[in-house]
């Protein structure tokens, strides 16, 4: 895509050289791909966009936060929707429900249902609070993640939460998930006398 010249005139060669130089020197560059459409994403751009933290601890940002600070963040940012103690309201219930998953009235919360603590950090950082997502500092997100875990009795009130702490915390329902076995029911193509 660098040049449309098809005849090897001096001018064309010069243009080709100039275009190649531009490709080399300028960053970001035109994509060196089959179609040559789009451009390379720079490492800085990727780093700025790539906010996903994963259950194995990859890609946590630097920082940490205390449960004590998390209480302040929670009361200011979360309690209005999730309740003073995570009991829920306009927003999801966050606490309790231990031992209910196999009952008629399961209560799915961070403590009873979520398999991975890093997901809590990831979700709060990207999507909470509902009316102002991506407004909390990393320290605030670490802290409030810790506070929600504390409300569920999963960390002590003295805990300092960082990526390592979240990754190493085994959530109660970590082993509660199974692969999709569907089709799990088999109906018959009954045409007559099908009612029991």
């Amino acid at each position, binding site marked *: 895509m660098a040049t449309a010249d098809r005849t090897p005139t001096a001018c064309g060669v010069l243009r080709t050289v100039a275009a190649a130089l531009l490709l080399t020197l300028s960053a970001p560059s035109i994509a060196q791909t089959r179609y040559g459409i789009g451009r390379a994403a720079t490492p800085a751009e990727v780093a700025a966009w790539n906010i996903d933290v994963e259950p194995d601890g990859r890609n946590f940002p630097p920082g940490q936060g205390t449960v004590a600070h998390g209480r302040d963040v929670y009361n200011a940012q979360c309690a209005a929707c999730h309740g003073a103690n995570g009991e829920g309201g306009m927003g999801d219930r966050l606490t309790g429900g231990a031992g209910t998953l196999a009952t008629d009235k*399961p209560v799915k919360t961070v403590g009873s249902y*979520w398999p991975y603590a890093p997901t809590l950090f990831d979700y709060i950082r990207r999507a909470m609070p509902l009316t102002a997502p991506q407004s909390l500092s990393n320290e605030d997100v670490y802290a409030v993640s810790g506070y929600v875990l504390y409300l569920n009795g999963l960390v002590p009130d003295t805990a300092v939460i960082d990526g390592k702490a979240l990754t190493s915390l085994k959530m109660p329902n970590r082993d509660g998930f199974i692969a999709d076995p569907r089709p799990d029911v088999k109906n018959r*193509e009954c045409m007559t006398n099908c009612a029991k």
Partner: protein
Amino acid sequence: MARTPRQPTTPATDVPATLEANTVGSAVTKGRRTFLRRSGAWVGSGVALAALDLHAQDAARASSGTASPPAIPDSMKAPGAPVGDKLYGVPSKYEAGVIRNVPKNQAQYISAASRTPLGDLDGIITPSGLFYERHHGGVPVIDPLQHRLMLHGLVKNPLLFTVDELRRLPSISRIHFLECSGNPVYTKPYGKTASDLVGLVSCGEWTGVSLKLLLDEAGLMPGAAWVMAEGADAAAMTRSVPLDKCLDDALVVYSQNGERLRPEQGYPLRLLLPGFEGNMNVKWLRRLKVTDAPVHSREETSKYTDLLPNGKAREFTFYMEAKSIITSPSGGQKIPGAGFVEIRGIAWSGHGKVVRVDVSVDGGSTWTQASLQEPVLTRALTRFRYPWQWNGRPAVIASRVVDETGYVQPAFEQLVGERGVNSFYHNNAIQPWRVADSGEVFNGNG
């Protein structure tokens, strides 16, 4: 249209037998039957059928009555609106009641859903303005000139595209349904109308770029197994998609039904994963990260997992299994009177094509094959119809689809027997409608 081995070999409109089986025969009914038989066309005798329009809101004008209509209606006595009166056309004012079905009294509407009015629609293409919605952080306003799509992770060439650049790449258009996996849930209170129950399904023609092409451009590295998709909305919606699906029929879409995506559908870009639960079809798509494992986002762990009675939950339940529903007559509608009723509905499967739909008008004891309206497309809504002679007595009607894998749509009791009532997602049960002797139609599930 290519036919699969499971395609029925007998004509689908096996009407007379059905009529005999379901007609006990008043003089009126018999007379109509004779007329229809003589006419030689069970469907398409428009004048006769127009009088039996089941449109609930049209009930008042459904009867042609005894008064003669004006020989010269007002619309013929003066010119109508000039060209250019509406630069973007909208439905007739008489159709103002055909709107999205938004549940009342929700705590908030930033993360909520609206449903397609299935009982009011014909055909297989959902009008863009009536497409169902499920947003987790509201509908963002995105300037397409500012929007970018990034591909990174386990790729040789991390890439950044503008929307216009994506439109320069080879394009694909396909018709596919999209369905939320909570459509409907298993617990009471059950919905009253087809829209209440199954209105989180819609179907459109989508145009975009093959995701495989984009991944080929980026160049997959060893270990690539999943692709995480992220939206540019306030939820930064995040889902992990198996690489196999991304290399199969996945699209990065910029247009729907011929025009650019509506904001509610992800303008200016969305992911489309035909047959996969709606939530994975990330709207306002801005980032695709190739990974070696799923990221276990909030949406694929705490939500969109299917809890079983034993306390375990199924995860990564992607496919929407085969489902069908009668949309006319359906809950909330009223059959104007005994006689001919064309039962109409939609069927679809995330696993491919619909090959057959059976209809029961006796509560599931007897089933008869319905006719399928072409085109019958992979992972798209398929219209079915079945001519019924209603005898004016209470009846329970239902439809049952079979897809090209041989899967037969199950009864609700079968699903509950396997999954309990707290599984929440992927309820694809047969939906019975109870027709009262008044002609009113109700949900056949208590």
